[in-house]
């Protein structure tokens, strides 16, 4: 009934009624395939078991079946449905482990993607080492992205470009995300680009995506309760062509430098006026 109501009321939302979001990155697509295989098996099991239940309820009512059979059990039947359930689970295990490498192992970047700053830890690493690393830092209630940094906190010394909330990535390039938090636990989740990863203070977690379509814009948001404005801790990932991306990085770097210079000037002036300065 609920399904029926939603079918009538929500044609625009039906795109995601029955399967996980995907389409932005190969790992998300693999998760979707895995989900759909499980979904198929699940629907089958659902129909058989609910069907048996409904049949029993309608067929064996007292009015239609006045005398109950005094059966205490059947060992053969017990063994067969135990084994049956186990077989389904073995199938699911095998399918999961077949699909797993395509979800956790980062693929090569496309040949035409530009080489960008990279670094490596135990983070996912494409076979040819060709990737973009972004440090994702969660804090109440915004995400900060430092481009070309493995979260080694040398942002300012290395004068690396960064942005808040909106992440810009080149299409076709494998993007490694190193995820940290500076206060409470957050979770990084952009559904179309793969599964979520917790940002736990004191830990670095990893994930990756490889955006397939330039010009796409993906929405995500923090998935772990992180405080009063948890609902507004959103993330946007904008996919650019490699050329656009290089231009954007350059522009962003210049903007940051300009702002830094202005702040430095302001601070110098304040210091000369005798105001106490705050150290960053």
């Amino acid at each position, binding site marked *: 009934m609920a399904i029926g109501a939603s079918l009538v009321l929500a044609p625009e939302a039906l795109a995601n009624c029955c399967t996980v979001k995907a389409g932005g990155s190969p790992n998300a697509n693999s998760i979707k395939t*895995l989900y759909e295989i499980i979904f198929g098996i699940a629907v089958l099991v659902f129909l058989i078991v609910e069907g048996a239940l409904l049949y029993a*309820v309608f067929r064996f009512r007292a009015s239609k*079946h006045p005398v109950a059979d005094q059966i205490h059990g059947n060992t053969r039947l017990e063994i067969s449905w135990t084994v049956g359930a186990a077989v389904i689970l073995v199938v699911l295990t095998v399918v999961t482990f077949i699909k797993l490498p395509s979800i956790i192992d980062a693929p090569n970047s496309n040949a035409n993607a530009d080489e960008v700053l990279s670094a490596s830890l135990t983070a996912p690493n494409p076979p040819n080492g060709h990737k973009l690393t972004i440090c994702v830092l969660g804090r109440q209630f915004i995400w900060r992205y430092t481009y070309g940094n493995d979260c080694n906190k040398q942002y300012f010394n290395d004068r690396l470009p960064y942005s808040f909330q909106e992440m810009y990535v080149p299409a076709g390039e494998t993007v490694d995300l190193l995820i940290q938090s500076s206060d409470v636990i957050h979770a990084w989740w952009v559904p179309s680009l793969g*599964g979520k990863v917790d940002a736990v203070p004191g830990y670095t977690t990893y994930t990756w995506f490889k955006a397939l379509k330039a010009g796409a814009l993906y929405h995500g948001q923090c998935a772990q309760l992180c405080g009063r404005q*948890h609902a507004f801790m959103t993330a946007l990932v904008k996919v650019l062509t490699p050329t656009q991306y290089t231009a954007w990085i350059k522009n962003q770097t210049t903007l940051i430098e300009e702002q830094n210079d202005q702040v430095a000037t302001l601070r110098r002036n304040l210091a000369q006026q005798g105001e106490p300065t705050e150290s960053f």
Partner: protein
Amino acid sequence: MGTTDYALRPVPQVLTHEIHQPRTTKKWLDWVMTTDHKKIGIMYLVLTFVFFMMGGVEALLMRTQLSVPNNTLISGEHYNELLTLHGTTMVFLFVVPVMAGFGNYFVPLMIGARDMAFPRLNALSFWLLLAGGIVFYASLLWHPPEAGWWSYPPLSSKQYSPSGGQDAWIFLIHLTGISSLVGAINFYVTIVNMRAPGMSWGRIPLFIWTILIYSVLLIIALPAVGAAVTMLLTDRHFGTHWFDPTDHGSPVLWENLFWFFGHPEVYIMILPGFGMISEVLPVFSRKPIFGYKAIAASTIVIAFLATLVWAHHLFTAPIPIVVLAFFMLSSFLIGIPTGVKIFNWIATLWRGSLVMTTSLYWAIGFIGIFIIGGITGIFLAVFPVDWQLNDSYFVVAHFHYVLMGGAVFAIMAGTYYWYPKMTGRMASERLGKASFWVTFIGFNMTFFVQHALGLSGMPRRIYTYQPDQGWSTYNLISSIGSYILAAGIIMSCWNFLWSFKHGKISGPDPWKANTLEWFTTSPPPPNNFDTIPRIRSVEPMRDIRREIEIQTGVMQKNGGTEQFSRPQPVAAEHS
């Protein structure tokens, strides 16, 4: 013709007689000072249903806030308080203790004992529960906790949750934890030592099996959460750094400790429900339970595996893949004994002669809904898929299917089944069935669409959302459903209140049931039984009835099964 009219058929009964003089003439004082397991059980049930209503109101407030995008009815702060109150209330103040309420009332009756092994400890466990509830809800007057019922640090630390509400939460866990622990020890000792003569382990009712395993799991799991909240308390007030990442502490330690308790807790909440279903189905199928040994064994296997699956709540936490794979497989394994139970329940209905009472409606509704909750659990056990579904509305839908549709439907089946025993009166069947249908429709409307919400990328615990996300329609359906669901539950609560004064007198054994509690009067006298029969099977009441029929010369057709069937319309007119 109501389906309960066969209750009026004259079948000889062995009755007990009240021999007790009340200690005091003041009725309320008698309740406060009581150590009678039945009175404590009633107090447990009434109190937990009150908490159920409060948790329900909190849920309705949240659903109202989410019914339209960008709603400003409730602020982020109050929404977080509501979700913390709702989760904590439903888990610690409703589902776990309501099972203890049923256990209190029915364990001694079903095993033929006069009371629990430690009656005063039993009273203590009730009053500690009440104290826990008061401490927790008193925070409403100041500042309720807002870190969720998991209270993950650092969000629950002094720095990010400075208010005393978080401490009230910790105090609640301690008080209800001690309450459940002493209760669990009491159940364990009672079941092991005080069974009727002849009631060997193969003859104890399945509800008793599940209460036994419930107790064992509580004894295993509660110390972990007790330790964890004590560590949180010392972190907050006494300068320790167990969970403080800025000083070599680890929030992941909390996650492990909490869920080492938290997952067995899930089975603590659902196993007694399984037990109730295993009692209700054979009675109204007029047929023995199918595979008694398999159901009892699967309960034990579930309990064992329940302690080995906690990290499937942590699939997105910093944990190596090989550990995730282990917890995926252990979570898969727990699906097997659960599946075995479902198959055995369906096989119990199969070729039975179903007497469609309200209790059976709820029990069948339970199976139908629990199948969905079980299947979505398999999705969540596959860790790469869980990376998409974890902490989304899919998870919210999943655990409401197993806890609301599972445990609560089982509790309703159990309440309708045992209501005549506890009150001496029949609950209204007509209102009960109406309540079932309204609840069933409202429940599925509320929670089925939440699967789709999760798949569309809506995280749980957000207090509002934007209209461009495509979540608005699903949320509206869900919110409307929640009011229908609430109406259904209120109908049943009204039914229980109304029938307490106005229901038909039930007599000792209105359902012609199988277990020993139906051997005594309704409600039972303080001493429960004057004589305790020797137990020869898992269905002592059937044995007793059969014996009496043989002695009184009633013809045994079809092995006596005809007396368990609904009377034919013609026969009913004569009576």
